[in-house]
């Protein structure tokens, strides 16, 4: 079956991202496809390559990256909402350049795109599951 997942909260503050990751991992292990994970609201903060948790704790961002969720074109299907991302300081190189910001923090396992990707995921998947606060 084809799953889509929406994550509404950032790493560590709420369990939502951990739960979503465990769900995604289990779905893949059971032979299902995760066609897209859409990060919305504070969920965009899961995509930061600056994240440095303590050694003895899980690394939420690397957990997501380890799932290696990509589409047929090889693009990441860990998708970060652009509007939510800019508002919260999550930038890829292109957005940073466009806005004359020095530096960027998007982890390469993720990509930034529009809200249409969430609706599309709802249409194209068999099930969309929301994880939030």
């Amino acid at each position, binding site marked *: *079956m084809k*799953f889509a997942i929406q994550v*509404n909260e950032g790493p560590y503050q709420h*369990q*939502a991202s951990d*739960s979503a990751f*465990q*769900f995604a*991992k*289990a*779905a893949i*292990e*059971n032979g*299902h496809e995760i066609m897209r994970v859409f990060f919305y609201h504070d969920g965009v903060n899961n995509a930061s390559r600056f994240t440095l948790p303590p050694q003895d704790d899980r690394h939420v961002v690397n957990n997501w990256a380890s799932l290696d969720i990509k589409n047929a074109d090889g693009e990441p299907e860990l998708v970060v909402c652009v509007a939510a991302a800019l508002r919260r300081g999550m930038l890829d190189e292109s957005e940073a350049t466009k806005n004359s910001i020095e530096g960027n923090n998007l982890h390469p396992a993720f990509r930034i795109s529009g809200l249409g990707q969430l609706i599309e995921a709802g249409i194209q998947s068999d*099930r*969309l*599951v*929301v*994880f*939030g*606060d």
Partner: protein
Amino acid sequence: MLHTVNKSSFERNSLQSCLNTIDDSSVILFIEDGVINAANNANSSMIADLAANGRVFALQGDVDARGISSKLADNIKLVDYSGFVDLVVEHGTAVSWV
């Protein structure tokens, strides 16, 4: 439908709102702090009938993390994440009472 509830009914109203609008064929899965609703406590009557009908599930990992595995209310069915996935497959549309 599968309804997930991730908050304690002592803290929030989301379980009550779920119960107000859940139809006769739907099931509830407690995850995260929602598993507090699966423990035997002053709010257990909220879900007793649904549980007796086999329609209330709780995520084992979250139950264990809260130290309440020996204190569950009657008729709660435990599932792991793989079982969570199966519930989503089986019950169609997923409603998250975040």
